[in-house]
């Protein structure tokens, strides 16, 4: 299997992307910011399409737009209640924009918009170039390190904001910074798993880890481990079974892990 370059590239990028998702995702679930994550994935989708339309490489548009929205969300602070209805309408509109851009792409470029759509939505990890996969891995490692470096302040800020500010931790800047990190992970993982599914890599391993252990460091490690295992397993499975798309396999395993963790936790309590 590893004789093929595309497989090696996929594993290289995938491993570190999964690692970053596992770590960042653990905090996203703890901070109950899955909605923000969901929104950012939709933005990532539009960003990628917009970049393709405007002719930049996908990556640039992706990162720029997603980062901008993330920082904007953070800066506007927690405005009022979590108004699900408004979030839902905005989601739909952003996706609608994406569809429009896709149509523009179809008419302007030399076709292949269907491919772009599928790839942006569902990932195309086997189409990574060696350079691309190294870049992805590098970004992911940087993200993971960024979170790990800030792990204690971030944890305190999440669990007890007032105490954190009393200790001199800039919780607002930290919050915005975290959303920015989330944006980077989101933008990046879109290539591997696709905009629609990367929420799963953020939510499922982290959710499973939090069901299994209340310890923060144990949880972080477990979350990262589960994400990486899901990635490896998914890639291997989809390599063996030609008709199984890699992203489906990866998310399927991650979801199964979450389901198993939930059942186990319930059995343990009950």
């Amino acid at each position: 299997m590893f004789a093929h370059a595309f497989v090696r590239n996929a594993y290289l990028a995938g491993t570190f992307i999964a690692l970053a998702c596992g770590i960042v995702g653990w905090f996203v679930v703890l901070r109950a910011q899955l909605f923000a994550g969901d929104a950012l994935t939709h933005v990532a989708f539009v960003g990628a399409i917009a970049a393709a339309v405007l002719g930049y490489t996908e990556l640039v548009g992706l990162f720029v737009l997603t980062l901008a929205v993330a920082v904007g969300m953070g800066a506007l602070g927690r405005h009022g209640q979590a108004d699900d209805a408004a979030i839902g309408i905005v989601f739909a509109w952003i996706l609608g924009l994406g569809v429009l851009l896709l149509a523009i792409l179809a008419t302007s470029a030399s076709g292949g918009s269907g491919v772009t759509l599928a790839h942006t939505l569902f990932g195309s990890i086997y189409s990574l170039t060696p350079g691309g996969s190294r870049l992805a891995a590098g970004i992911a490692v940087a993200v993971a390190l960024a979170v790990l470096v800030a792990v204690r302040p971030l944890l305190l800020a999440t669990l007890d904001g007032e105490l954190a500010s009393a200790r001199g931790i800039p919780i607002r800047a930290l919050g915005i910074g975290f959303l920015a990190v989330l944006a980077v992970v989101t933008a990046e993982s879109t290539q591997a798993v696709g905009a629609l599914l990367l929420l799963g890599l953020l939510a499922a391993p982290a959710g499973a880890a939090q069901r299994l252990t209340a310890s923060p460091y144990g949880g972080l490690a477990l979350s990262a481990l589960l994400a990486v295992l899901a990635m490896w397993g998914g890639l291997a499975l989809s390599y063996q079974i030609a008709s199984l798309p890699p992203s489906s396999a990866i998310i399927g395993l991650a979801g199964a892990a979450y389901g198993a963790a939930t059942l186990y936790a319930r059995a343990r309590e009950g």
Partner: protein
Amino acid sequence: MSTRLSLDPISDLRELFAFPFMVNALEAGTIVAVLAAVVGWYMVLRRQTFAGHTLSVMAFPGAAGAALVGLPTGLGYYVACGGAALFMRRARGSARRSYGTETATIATVQVVGLAAGYLFLSLGNAVLGGTETLLFGTFLGVSRTQVLALLIVAAVAVTLVAVSARPLLLETIDPEAARARGLPVAILDTGFLLVLAAAVAATSQITGALLVFALLVAPAAAAQQLTMRPGIGLVLSVVFALLIVWLGLGIAYFSIYPVGFYVTSIAFALFLAARLVRSIRTRRRAR
């Protein structure tokens, strides 16, 4: 669709109605608009929009899976959404609100559903066009049978809601009082989720699984910005939904751009306008 908009309303309308597919689309759109507006009004009040979103996502694997095994896609929609509704009900017990830790579960369910849908599509080798249609809707492919099926589903669902209008409202805003009055709270809860699943499955066939919110949430949310009175709110919700569908379909006919974009943009604009009106009113009242 790239026919010219001749700016003469009568002839434009006549053109719209000339083609059977367009008539089907408008009919289907109207039926779905009414259904989504009514069910959506309650859904927004019950703060179940995230559940609604997840159910709509389930439409995607449902339709794709049905196509894969050779069943009619319509059936796939309803079965998948209905099944997901029951599963969510069981998984969450009697708690209606699903914030915090439960969002991880719902997010996972949603994503696994999408992954499964993509898998089914790939297996069926209908990858590209299929994806777009299922996710973002199309109005080109609405058949006569589909319109009829939608009509039946919508009629049943709307009737159920109409007949339980007051008990459902009481259970929504004050489950304690509902229980005290002897209302079957659990049945109302589950029943509504199933009706929501049906509404979502129906709406997805027009707007696609991802854009359902344009019809399910926007009209209701806009109406609730403008009025708190249940009766008027429901009527307004229906009016808004019809507006969105007719304008969206109408404009999309004359444009090369997809209907999903127009529907969501009009919906969003409508909601913003309603929000604006409300804040103007509040500010004026405060003076």
